[in-house]
């Protein structure tokens, strides 16, 4: 009952990328120590509140790898001390290629980290510059090789497409180069220009343009085709993995199972409801100094909200939703809840049923928003 995934947010970056609207501040050594102490306090408070059994850990950001190996290991050690961590759990750390050193990786490996997620984004130096990334393609390759040397056997690349001025060929080259290195896992996202980012500003000034829908589509289809040829299986809308290398942690999100979250602005879903932490790092620290959980909000989810979230998250997975599990969990069948919607979607060829599972068709995957909107109940 008290099994949770655990997300830890490291809110520091050396530089904010032009597309990024995540919660992060400029890295400052003086702030880091204060943050780490607050985080330690939060771990204790959360342990007291939930006495959780931890199923996976994901340290994200921000740029977690901007911290030293020692600092990261310290966080993990505290987790192990305070929480009941299942054995052999997946522990992921996000890393930016330019921050990776042999010493850091060795420490992490020793500290229990068994999965690294590299923010690669592109194998095109010019595009990397346009994104505001601080690394080169060479640094990506070096970081990857280093991780392999040190013995990491579960690596992910985050890649971005539908970038300003990116051609289909550009994207194909990035995919091909990624596959040549051969990480176990790939996550590919199309660029979405978010409010408040440098890109949003550039868009408004007419310096960059949206990617045409047709090109975006072509890139996505190229991704599906090429990665399948290279032996990666798509298991979620944007995620691909070698057999057995699917991310445990992220699947917990999509299966709508509970997860706890630490760090400024981090979101959690504890089975009762959803909540998130104070985003301002000073406020976050202050709250913890006063021995209070730094929650900005925590709201109960109604049964219907839980159901709709199970649908809109679960259908992102290629395998979709188990009808039996759904019925067991909610004491009602999807057919009772969504009869008309399901009829329409079936006729339109956007969903399919196979054995006990309901999932999106290939067409449904491309138009997932149109499909998922049908399952909103609240």
């Amino acid at each position, binding site marked *: 009952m008290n099994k949770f995934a655990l*997300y830890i947010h490291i809110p520091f970056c050396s530089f904010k990328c032009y597309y990024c609207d995540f919660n992060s501040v400029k890295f400052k050594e003086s702030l880091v120590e204060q943050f780490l102490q607050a985080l330690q306090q939060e771990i204790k408070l959360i342990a007291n509140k939930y006495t959780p059994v931890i199923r996976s850990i994901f340290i994200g950001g921000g740029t977690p790898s901007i911290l030293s190996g020692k600092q990261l290991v310290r966080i993990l050690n505290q987790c192990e001390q305070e929480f009941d961590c299942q054995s052999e759990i997946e522990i992921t750390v996000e890393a930016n290629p330019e921050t990776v050193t042999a010493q850091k990786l060795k420490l992490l490996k020793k500290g229990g980290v068994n999965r690294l997620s590299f923010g690669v984004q592109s194998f095109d130096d010019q595009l990397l510059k346009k994104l505001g990334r601080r690394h080169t393609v060479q640094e990506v390759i070096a970081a990857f090789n280093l991780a392999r040397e040190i013995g990491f056997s579960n690596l992910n690349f985050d890649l971005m497409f539908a970038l300003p001025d990116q051609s289909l060929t550009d994207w194909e080259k990035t995919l091909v180069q990624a596959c040549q290195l051969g990480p176990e896992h790939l996550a*590919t*996202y*199309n660029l*979405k220009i978010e409010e408040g980012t440098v890109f949003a500003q550039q868009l408004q000034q007419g310096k960059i343009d949206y990617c045409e*829908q*047709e090109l*975006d*589509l072509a890139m*996505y289809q190229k991704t599906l085709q090429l990665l399948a040829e290279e032996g990666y299986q798509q298991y979620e*809308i*944007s995620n691909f993995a070698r057999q057995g290398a699917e991310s445990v942690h*992220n699947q917990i*999100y*999509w299966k709508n199972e509970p*997860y706890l*979250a630490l760090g400024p*602005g*981090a*979101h*959690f*879903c504890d089975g009762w409801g*959803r909540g*998130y932490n104070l985003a301002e790092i000073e406020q976050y620290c202050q709250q913890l100094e006063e021995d209070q959980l730094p929650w900005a909000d925590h709201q109960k989810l109604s049964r219907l909200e839980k159901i*709709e*979230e199970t649908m*809109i*998250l679960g259908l*992102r997975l290629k395998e979709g939703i188990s009808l039996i599990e759904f019925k067991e969990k909610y004491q009602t069948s999807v057919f009772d809840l969504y009869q008309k919607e399901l009829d329409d979607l079936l006729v*339109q060829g*956007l969903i399919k049923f196979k054995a006990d599972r309901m999932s999106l068709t290939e067409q449904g*995957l*491309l*138009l*997932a*928003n*149109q499909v*998922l*909107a*049908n399952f*909103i109940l*609240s």
Partner: protein
Amino acid sequence: MGTVNQENVRNFSIIAHIDHGKSTLADRLLEFTGTISEREMEEQLLDTMDLERERGITIKAQAVRMSYQADDGEEYILNLIDTPGHVDFSYEVSRSLAACEGALLVIDAAQGIEAQTLANIYMALENDLELIPVINKIDLPNANPDKVKEELIDIGIDPDEAILTSAIEGIGIKDVLEAVVDRVPLPSGEEDEPLKALIFDSLYDPYRGVISYYRVVDGVIKPGMEIKMMATDTVFEVGEVGTFSPQMKKAEQLSTGEVGYVAASIKDVKNAQVGDTITDANNPTAKPLPGYQPAKPMVFCGLYPVDGKDYDLLRDALEKLQLNDASLTFEAETSEALGFGYRTGFLGLLHMEIIQERLEREYDLDLVTTAPSVIYKVHHENGEVLKVENPANMPDKHQIEKIEEPIVEAQLLLPEEYVGAAMELAQDKRGQFKNMEYLDQVRVKLTYDLPLSEIVLDFFDKLKSNTRGYATFDYEFKGYQEADLVKLNILVNKESVDALSCIVHRDFAYEIGRELTKKLKENIPEQMFKVPVQAAIGNDIIARQTIRAKRKDVLQKCYGGDVSRKKKLLKKQKEGKKRMKQVGSVDIPQEAFMSVLEID
């Protein structure tokens, strides 16, 4: 309350252009006569509906009775009858004016006389009313009373009779009251004659039934008496009579010259229509008062609930509104595209907008409205003449001998420099030039015969923009005229959508077809498949656009922290879809059904 001395009664109304200060002046008169204290005074008391206040217009007539101790020492009863302020309601205005002997003509000292006011001035003069010019807002820095006086001379009113006021500042209010006493003729009429009362408004009260506002022309009306409505020949027993102070105040009787209300358990406003004559059922007058016209809608549109389940709610709402508004008509109709709804008739475009807005606001209905249409007279080859008020019902073109359309005589008042622009517009809208007249050195009155169908689309908006807002415009129905009209069918995804079809002049059919399909392409969002939008006359396709298919719509990134945000997006998407009407397999948003109004 005892009997009233007819000699001490004065009935008057106020004629003014929107914004010239009619309501404020009325408020001051009420205050000055102590009819209502300043404390009770809600700004602009006479306009009671929210919508009326927002739009600054009066939709229903209102009446109020004031007592005034004049300088001659006598106590007078002054009945102020407020009139609706828009061309759509000109008949209601004419009946209100017919209930009076005089009118205050309120003119903004800075703006001068405006076209709409002119129409009402003529109407007042036709009704033989004594006009008292009131030049208001003299406190404004750009007030120019002398210029207004010149304009008065132009329309044949003695400028020396004008009273200068500032209703806002309370200047000249007493002068106005004295002028009403001195100059407005006392009501004629014989108390001993059989009852004759003119209804100038009726409204529905859920507890007492219809309440009619009237002016007693001859005789007396009192509770217990049996009265007859002469237009419908229906008889009712009077439950209560009274006056307005401005709340309703019971009276023992109302006699010749007085203005008041009657409640007689009348269930339907149709039995107490504006302009009808009330008489004594047991001692009826021989002839009703002149001028009664049954309410006659001129503009029609289809009203459909977005959610089919709201059909009954829509009917209830229309019924309730109709209780207060005999000119609103509705009839069930079905559209292949929109399902069940009502073909609804209105006096004019403003009336239509007001009703739509009230339905959406007061009754919380989500509606799809089809483009407004007029009544066409279609001569069928079998000799029948059909009245077609819904383009979807137009017979097959091979069966039509000829089509006639309603024509109005339109008067445009505008500064000289915009004459060219206005004439061009009128010509574009198939107008027939009738006359051009200089009202003074700079102002011109243009008279055109125009097809009503062109006016109900966007004539007024265009006129305003072509003349930078300087032109004003008024029209009245003239008659029917043959025209070379065709039905333009609109096909969405190869299916004819009846609710989008319209009737247009053959010469403009191609252009309108082209523009309309373009607008529809803009107004209909991408669907999951390619959707052709075509315009056709009969089976001939004359224009085509293609709405491209939505090929990709997916939130690529969604992890723990994104859930609430992404859900919000999906929710919005769902809400948007709910407000659309599914026609065949295509989702069409409400606005798209009005696309024809957006054509330049």
